[in-house]
Structures are given as C-alpha cells and as structure tokens.
C-alpha cells in the first residue's frame, strides 16, 4: 500500500510537467494576448510590459524561466491584477472554494448515500420514484436556473439569507451556495448508489446472508454496503474536483471569490501566469483526490490489488 502511494506521488511530477507544458503551449497559441486592450498600447509601453514579464524572449526560454521560478515556489506575477502575485491570488481563493466545495461534498455524500440506499431497498415502488424525482432535481434543472430560484425564495421573498457575497466567518453567506452545489452533487451520488446497491443486493453472498436470517439492517450495512460503494467512490473523485475547482456558475451567481471564477477570468484575460498557477493547483488537487479514491477502492474491495 505504501509503496503504491509513494509510486503515485512520484508519478505526479511528470504528470504536472505534462500539464504545465500543454497549457503553456495552448495559452500562447490562443489568439489575443494579455495586453490586447480596447485602447491600443504604445510600442514603448508594450516593450516594457513584455520585458517585465519576459514575453519578448523566445517561447522555450520563457518556459524555462517559468519552471525555474516554480522550483522556488514562485508562481509568478499576475498579468491582469498588477498588484498581486499568483501565489497571493491562489492562496486567497483556495480556502473559499475548499469550504464550499468540501462541505457540499460531505453533505451530498451523506444525503446521497442514504437516499440511494432507501430507494434501492424500495425498488420500483412509489417511494422509489418520488425519492429519485426529488433527488434528481440537481441534474435535471440547470444550476443557472436553480441558483436564482433559491435566491428568489430564500433571500428575496423570505428574507432569511443573503443573496450573495462572502465572509470568511459568517456562515449565513455559505448556506445558499452550499445548498446549490449539494443539490447538484446529490443527484449523481444518489442515483449511482441506488443502482449499485440494487445490483449488489441480488448477488449470491447477500442471498446467503438473508437466507441465514440476518436482519435487513445488518445485511445492508455490514455486507452489501462495501462493494456497493465502489462506483459511488469512483464518482466522488470527479465530483469533488469539479465542486472545488470548477464551481463557476455558483461563484458567479453568489459573487464568491473562488477558484472557478479565477480560472475563467484568467483564461478570458489571457493571464498566463494566473492560469498556469491555477492549473497546477487543480492538477495537484486532482492527483490527490484520485489517489484517495484508488486507495478507497482497495479498502472496499479486498480483491483489488495494485
């Protein structure tokens, strides 16, 4: 197990390098540069801007420069937000996204797994359909509709919660964004859990357990749940990654200073360093989460060996 983990951690480095290189090339190949603005910039200013950010050097030299500063832990200066370094911007956005994405994942998993189990055990009954109907709201109704509806109901008609904005310590700003993300994630987790548990419940060892006369609760919670969770765990990886790093719609609707908005704005502004810095962060998060998911596989299904 530990050797496997170590191997995965080491494998991160070439993966990271590959991501940086691809994004780097893509950014520079995309038309429009960071200093293309409505009002044309004079040649002298452009020359100075480019010198400031090493843009006048040939591509491969800039690349090496960038890698070099990376080794020193410096993600570079943002092109667009002249007063901040990329380290600053990323460090400020990460806790926000972690809070919202992380909490919504926890709630979605807790609710989704419960919902899925409940529905699976009452397969094809009215309760099953109803539960699935409610649970699927997050995937059938687009987030840019669900969000404003939540705001209209809970912030404007019933003035219980703020309609947007962010505060590090005031929980009331967290409620609606987390609710939105949770609804979206809930439907995926619930449906996968339901389908997976239904399959497991008809396998031989479960039949044996039931034949033995074990109460349903024990059958499900002690025997069926582990293999049934396997597909759910597979799904959690991508869900968690997108909740934390790509919750753009949520962040825009509620004006939250998170990672998703930062990436999209960075790409629109051709803020090369910011985008690359965020890409690195996303890669690290993705690698970490995927590693956890793979380790979870081994725990849930003892026959899986690496």
């Amino acid at each position, binding site marked *: 197990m530990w050797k496997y983990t170590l*191997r995965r951690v080491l*494998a991160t480095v*070439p*993966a990271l390098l*590959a*991501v940086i290189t*691809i*994004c780097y090339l*893509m950014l520079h190949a*995309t038309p429009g540069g960071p200093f293309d603005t409505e009002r044309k910039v004079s040649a002298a200013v452009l020359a100075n801007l480019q010198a400031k950010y090493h843009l006048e050097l040939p591509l491969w030299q800039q690349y090496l420069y960038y890698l070099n500063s990376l080794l020193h832990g410096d993600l570079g200066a943002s092109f667009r937000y002249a007063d901040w370094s990329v380290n600053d911007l990323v460090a400020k956005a990460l806790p926000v996204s972690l809070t919202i994405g992380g909490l919504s994942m926890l709630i979605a998993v807790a609710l989704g797994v419960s919902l899925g189990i409940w529905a699976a055990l009452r*397969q*094809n009954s009215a309760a099953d*359909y109803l539960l*699935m*109907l409610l649970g*699927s709201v997050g*995937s*059938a*109704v*687009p*987030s*840019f*509709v669900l969000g404003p*509806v939540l705001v*209209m109901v809970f912030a404007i008609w019933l003035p219980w919660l703020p309609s947007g904005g962010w505060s590090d310590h005031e929980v009331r700003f967290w409620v609606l964004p987390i609710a939105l993300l949770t609804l979206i994630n809930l*439907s*995926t987790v619930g*449906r*996968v859990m*339901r*389908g997976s548990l*239904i*399959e497991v419940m*008809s396998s031989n060892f479960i039949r044996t357990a039931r034949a033995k006369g074990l109460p349903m609760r024990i059958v499900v919670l002690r025997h069926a749940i582990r*293999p049934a969770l*396997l*597909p759910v*765990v*597979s*799904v959690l*990886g*991508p869900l968690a*990654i997108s909740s934390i790093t790509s919750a753009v719609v949520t962040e825009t609707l509620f004006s939250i200073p998170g990672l998703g908005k930062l*990436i*999209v704005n960075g*790409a*629109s502004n051709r803020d090369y360093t910011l*985008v690359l810095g*965020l*890409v690195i962060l*996303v*890669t690290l998060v*993705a*690698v970490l989460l*995927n590693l956890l998911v793979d380790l979870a*596989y081994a725990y849930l*299904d003892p*026959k*899986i*060996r690496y």
Partner: protein
Amino acid sequence: MPTLIPKSATESAEPAQRSPWLDARIRFVRNRAALASLLILVCIVFACVLGPLLLPYSYEDTDWNQMGIAPTLTGWHLFGTDELGRDLLVRTLVGGRISLTVGLLATLVSVSLGVAWGAVAGFVGGRVDALMMRIVDILYAIPYLLIAIMMVTILGRDFYLVVLTISAFSWMDMARVVRGQTLSIRSKEYVEAARAIGVPTWRIIFSHVVPNLLGIVVIYTSITVPGVILTESVLSFLGLGVQEPMTSWGVLIHDGANVMASSPWMIWFPGAALTITLYCANFIGDGMRDALDPKER
C-alpha cells in the same frame, strides 16, 4: 413397451427458450416510469422534428411590435415571444433539435471512448493502467474554456465541432468510473475461471467484463446526458457553440433565467422541455439498468 411418461408432458414441462434481450425488453416495459418516459421522449422528439414545419413562424422572424409578450392565442404565440419578438414555441422546438442531437451524439462519442478507455485500463492493469489514468488526470486539469477557445479559433466553427468539444470534456469521468468497476470485476471468480481455461483477453473483456459494466455505464450515461446538454449551453453562452439566430434549450434557458422575474414564460417553457427530457432520460436509464441486470430474474 408402452412409454410411461407421455411425450406431451415432458415437452410442455420445458419452458421455451427466451433470448436475454427479449427478457430485458419485458422487464423494461414492466417498469412503468421507464415506459412512460420513453413514450414522452418520443413525443418530444416528434414535436421537435415536425413541429417547426407546421407553425407559421420561423425561428428567426423578429417582430418589433410583439416583443416579450406573454403566451397568447392571438397571433398563435402559444409560448409567447422573446425580447426580440421571436416566437418562443418555434424556438423551443428548433432548440430542441439542437440540444437532443448534441446530447445524443456527444453522449455516444464520450461513452464509447470512456468505456473503451476505462475497460482497457482497468483490465490490463499495471503500468498501462497507471499511464492511461495519468493521461486522464492531465486532461482533467486543463481548463475547459481554454480548450474550447482554442478548438474554435483553430478548427473553425461547425456544429460537429461543438459536439467534439463537448465530448472532449465528458469522456473522462466515464473512463474513471468504468476503470474502477473493471478493477472489481477483473478479480471476480468467473473471470479467473475464464482465464484459467485460456479464453483470449479480448474475448474476456467483451463477453464477461462489458456486460457486467452495463449497469454502471447506463446509469452514468444518463448522468452524462444532462451534463452534455448543459455544457453546450455554457459554450454557446461563451460564444463557442451554436451561433445566433440558431438556438438550443441551454441558450434559451440561460436567456430566460436572466429575465425570470419579469417574463417567466421565457424560462418556463424551454426549462420544462429540458427538465422533462432529462427526467425521462433518468428514468429510462434506471429502467434500462434494471432491465439489463444479468441477475434480475
């Protein structure tokens, strides 16, 4: 010697052989929700394909005197008009054509690619698995906006390009899910048995692994479909998808969401169309999963 057991009795005691597909179809039909969903979906498809041909307006006819009116029978604006005076019913149906086609094609491409990738990685294991999954990790980390802008500016604007772009983002989740499931199936007894008796690897994959993946694949496909249709709307909003005056449900809903408070019909109708379609897809997905489950008897 007279036969002790009448021939007819033995013959009638053995049930007629039924193909597993017929089995599945029967199970599917028995699932009320899935059947109803299928019928509704067929109706929607028919409406989208034939409807615009029957209506008096085209999807791009603007009418500056009838801007933003609520649904009304006069002038046959059954769904009302949008803020440029274009009939919403026609636009919803035409938009449906785009959304359904994109949904279908992109899902097809991403599911095929995702299943193939994930099954091979999960089954072969070892270094190949590690490499293939690392590639998925790498592709995952690249911001989709960047890819989308690049693909459009370099390859030009084309409907199939939209499909391609969307598929490019959607296959990776499926690959990962399938790989996980394959890892589990690989260690099952029947696979060990097949290997023991010398069945070639490709045969094992297609005859044993894939059918057992069907359940999770079907479920995840019905999760992919809404994702694909919504990605299309985000792309169109960013200027990278369908061009004006052509529209899609995603675009209509996005525009409608902005004027929700003043012109609710603009979001109700396309929103209902999308939601109903997606719910139907969900139920059909669940129904198919239940129907194709090899253990259901």
